[in-house]
């Protein structure tokens, strides 16, 4: 008998995942700025401080490098820390800890230690927060050997990836797109862990592979619907795991559709979309009927006004137009 479905938001799914982890494993604790009394800057952790107390829902001072490094140390010391960096924008201050310690300690020690640390952070634009608060830097994280990177886009993944990340012996970075927190939908009451790796086909199709992740997934799905109304059947792939990338699923899709478009909220130059395009070049060149395309964010710090922010980011019409162009239907 399948379990009851409950209307849930992405925010609630993440909260339940954290709650669940705290209950399952006494070694788990959450640490970050305003995760406790304040309830989290995106209200993700609301209520957890009352339930679990300040030791396990640990408010940290403004010191991203310090408390991220402390999370690494606590992981070495036998805990299973979840470090919340409020947003990816502030993670720039913690990159030394992430690259030079979290990702590297296992190798430098010749395999003696593992760093079972989970880092969660909000990412992305769309809330008119302007140039310093709208970054998408998944591409940087994806380029760090030694860590894993995931981008849950669905309620199931938001609910299920955290536990798998905590069970992973190595550091896992979880990107939560800010525009997803309010999304709601049905989620199984007994929804549980899901594997970290593996891309998912969110919509099957035969004419073109639309590859996306995180906050851009829904725009991509909407674009696929719009294309369907024109008779173009797009396959939509949700990467889910950004490092490692699931090349097999991508290449199998391209082998069927012979065309691909990557939708990525990162700035175009140096984007994750570029990496995926290069991999398709390397692994599926002979399957291609047209060059792989990219819809990315315009290379400008995100402007405050809504019309300019919208113009900078990938949008349904630009995705549709790019797909059409690849199919020669301009």
């Amino acid at each position, binding site marked *: 008998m399948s379990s009851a479905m409950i209307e849930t938001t992405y925010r609630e799914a993440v909260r339940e995942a954290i709650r669940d982890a705290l209950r399952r494993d006494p070694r788990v604790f959450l640490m970050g700025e305003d995760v406790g009394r304040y309830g989290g800057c995106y209200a993700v952790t609301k209520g957890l401080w009352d339930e679990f107390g300040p030791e396990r829902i640990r408010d940290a001072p*403004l*010191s991203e490098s*310090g408390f991220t490094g402390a999370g690494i140390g606590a992981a070495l010391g036998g805990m299973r820390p979840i470090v919340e960096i409020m947003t990816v924008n*502030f993670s720039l201050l913690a990159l030394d800890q992430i690259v030079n310690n979290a990702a590297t300690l296992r190798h430098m020690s010749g395999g003696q230690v593992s760093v079972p640390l989970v880092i969660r952070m909000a990412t992305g634009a769309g809330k008119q927060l302007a140039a*310093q608060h709208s970054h998408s830097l998944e591409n940087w994280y994806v380029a760090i050997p030694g860590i894993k990177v995931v981008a849950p886009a669905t309620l199931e993944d938001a609910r299920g990836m955290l536990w798998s990340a905590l069970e992973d012996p190595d550091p896992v970075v979880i990107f939560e797109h800010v525009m997803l927190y309010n999304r709601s939908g049905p989620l199984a009451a007994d929804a549980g862990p899901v594997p970290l790796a593996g891309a998912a086909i969110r919509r099957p199709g035969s004419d073109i592979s639309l590859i996306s992740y995180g906050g851009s997934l829904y725009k991509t799905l909407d674009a696929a619907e719009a294309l369907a109304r024109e008779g173009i059947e797009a396959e939509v792939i949700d990467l889910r795991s950004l490092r490692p990338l699931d090349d097999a699923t991508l290449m199998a899709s391209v082998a069927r559709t012979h065309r691909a478009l990557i939708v990525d909220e990162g700035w175009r130059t140096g984007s994750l979309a570029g990496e995926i395009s290069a991999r398709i070049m390397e692994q599926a060149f002979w399957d291609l009927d047209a060059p792989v395309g990219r819809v990315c964010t315009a290379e*400008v710090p995100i402007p405050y006004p809504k019309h*300019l922010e919208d113009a*900078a980011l990938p949008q349904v019409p630009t995705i549709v137009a790019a797909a059409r162009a690849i199919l020669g239907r301009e």
Partner: protein
Amino acid sequence: MNDHTGPSASPATAHERRDESRQDRQPAAAKLHLNRDHALRLLREMLRIRRFEERCAELYTEEKIRGFLHLYIGEEAIAVGVMQCLTAEDAVVTTYREHGHALARGLPMTSLMAEMYGKQEGCSRGRGGSMHLFDLARRFYGGSAIVAGLLPLAVGLALADKLQGRNRVTACFFGEGAAAEGEFHESLNLAALWQLPVLFVCENNLYAMGTALERSQSETHIHRKAQSYQIAAETLDGMDVLAVEIAARQAVAAIRAGEGPRFLECQTYRFRAHSMFDAQLYRDKAEVEAWKKKGPLLRFGHWLEEAGLLDVAGRAQMEAEIEAELAAAVAFAEAGTWESVADLLKDVYTGEP
């Protein structure tokens, strides 16, 4: 016409103080020549900020202003007090809670309001919004959404002045939360080591978002941190505009005399939420109410009345003038225009596209 000669004549004396370093101050240097015009100017400047922000809060609920909006309400005395001591040549560097600093620095309310709307008539052509107010002509260098992120920049502006032999001051405002960041530490060391003309102004409103100071820093007297870099520092009543002005005047004088950086810890409180998305579960109403009673407008307004410097009619006229200025600013913003999407890539690089 009063001519006050120090804090004893000011309403500040009635306030609680946590000031341990005040005794170091030379009474002579503390003289503040407070004539009526100046006193009224202080009130007016604070009122302009208050009314501007009250209106911004309304405009936010009307969705005219979007993104993050951090109100300075309750803290006006600091920006107004400090700005009195700066010249047009000096520089100002601040945070995302900077409407007060911008107004007190003389940015026109019109271009500020247009910026809040995101219109191209705004002081940052609409690109910045509430958190990124800039005005090069007034040497107002923002406006940053990264806590402590502009402290190094303030150090650099002061270094440029020192290297070019210009006797200018860079005033740098930030919250007590910023004092936990590594960039605070690095910046204070640089400023002290190189004896740079920076006035560090810590607006200690006791909370960083929802985190109380005593739950985030082992040393809660922020000025003592500054002292640990060999920077002369003091704490003072940031709800008292005269106290702020006096302390800032002395600090700026010392800086101009080549004595290196100075640090002011201003005890204050924000009366509103951190931003517009904050249920304020982390502090109780009684605490907020108690601080409101010490509000910079309330006490200074009363005192002006009692001292016979401002009667009911005078106050009403001041309010009316500010209301008119504000109405004009809103009208200006409403009439403002949206930048063309064709210009999206403008000003990523100089002179392009």
